[in-house]
């Protein structure tokens, strides 16, 4: 079980009333750490996941410097001090 930092986008923090962007979470993998975050931060899951249970289409997740969509499951194992960052995918619009 690794202790890692989860960094959330400011719009999600503000709507949940969170004053900090960074939160300590635990897990052996990125998925486990996110599950831990959903338990610690009520209301977070609906903003990151859709009804399929997967991350929403325009939500990107990075493990340290690499998008998790480019990582294999084995490469998503966590070590103490890792950083998971949630970002809005680069998308056009208003």
């Amino acid at each position, binding site marked *: 079980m690794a202790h890692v930092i989860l960094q959330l986008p400011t719009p*999600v923090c503000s709507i949940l009333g969170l004053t900090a962007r960074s939160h300590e979470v635990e897990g052996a993998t990125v998925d486990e750490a996110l599950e831990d975050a959903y338990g610690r931060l009520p*209301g977070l899951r609906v903003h990151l996941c859709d009804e399929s249970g997967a991350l929403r289409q325009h939500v990107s997740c990075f493990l340290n410097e690499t998008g998790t969509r480019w990582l294999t499951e084995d490469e998503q194992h966590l070590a103490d001090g890792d950083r998971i960052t949630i970002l809005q995918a680069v998308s056009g619009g208003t």
Partner: protein
Amino acid sequence: MAVLIGTEKGAFVATSDAARRQWQVEGPLFKGWKVTASARSPSGRYLVATASFVYGPALHVGDDLSGLAQVEDGPAYPEGGDLKLSQIWTINAGASRHYAGVDQAGLFFSDDDGQSWQPVPGLNDHPTRKGWLPGAGGLCAHAVLVDPANAERIWCGISAVGVFRSDDGGATWVPKNEGVDQVVPDPNFPDIGRCVHGLAPDSEHADTIFRQDHSGMYRTYDGGDHWERNEAGLSSGFGFPIAMDPLTSALYAVPIESGEYRMPVGGAFRPHRSTNGGDSWEPLGNGLPPPPYEAGVLRGAMAVDGLDPGGVYLGTAAGDLFVSADGGDSWQGLPCTLPRILSVEVYVEE
């Protein structure tokens, strides 16, 4: 009094005294989020719906607008199912039960003042569902009416589908569109395929309902069993919002040019009023911008306050809020330009 103006990028609160001439605008609340609907329950609790194309929808509740908290057990379709909830379109907050209409079209209810929500399967799993197709605004349940004298009797309007009525508290639903032109023909489902844009209940008779539809303006006197056109004097039968002042029974609508163009007719932004139950309509323009003003009013962006004289509030897609404090005889614009306005609700202090 306060007007909650929901926009594409947050909510703004306009406040005034009872004269409704001097206004202050503060905000945004929920900066960067779409604020798609709001309501205040008889207990005084506010319910405000937000949405984001990135981060999804949510519902927030609180006893004042500056102290809203996201509901954990809000309206939601089950994980692993086919339906996705993109936004809450309308909230009907009753004394004992609240309803939320959503996109993808469906209805949810709450019996604990908005803290937790359950689906209404009689509508969400309706036998006609396979014939429900999204319109330009999506596949949204955007209007919910409840008979004030009989909570078992409920109407729900779904865009590009039509109006449904339940007489048993939401257990079963029947399409109620007879007399309304079908705009999405489907031989398998002749009772739907109507594109209701807005519903306004009569202030005195629950079975009298006014309907702004894609195909024109209609009314019913029998709870939706039959509908008839009432378009005399309208510059166009096409439009989205409709509302009735509960005190004077004056009706308000904002005609725009056809489903193809969706712009004010001839560039003239002119809400219309009927003071005879829809028998005839008159344009209103005193104090509104001269042509060209090429923005319309979205279906949730018109409200009335029920005061004497009646206040009418129009939020436009150009981000202007126009207020009439005399039933529509004259108008003033608030001194601000906001993002595209999606929802407008008025909260009068008792």
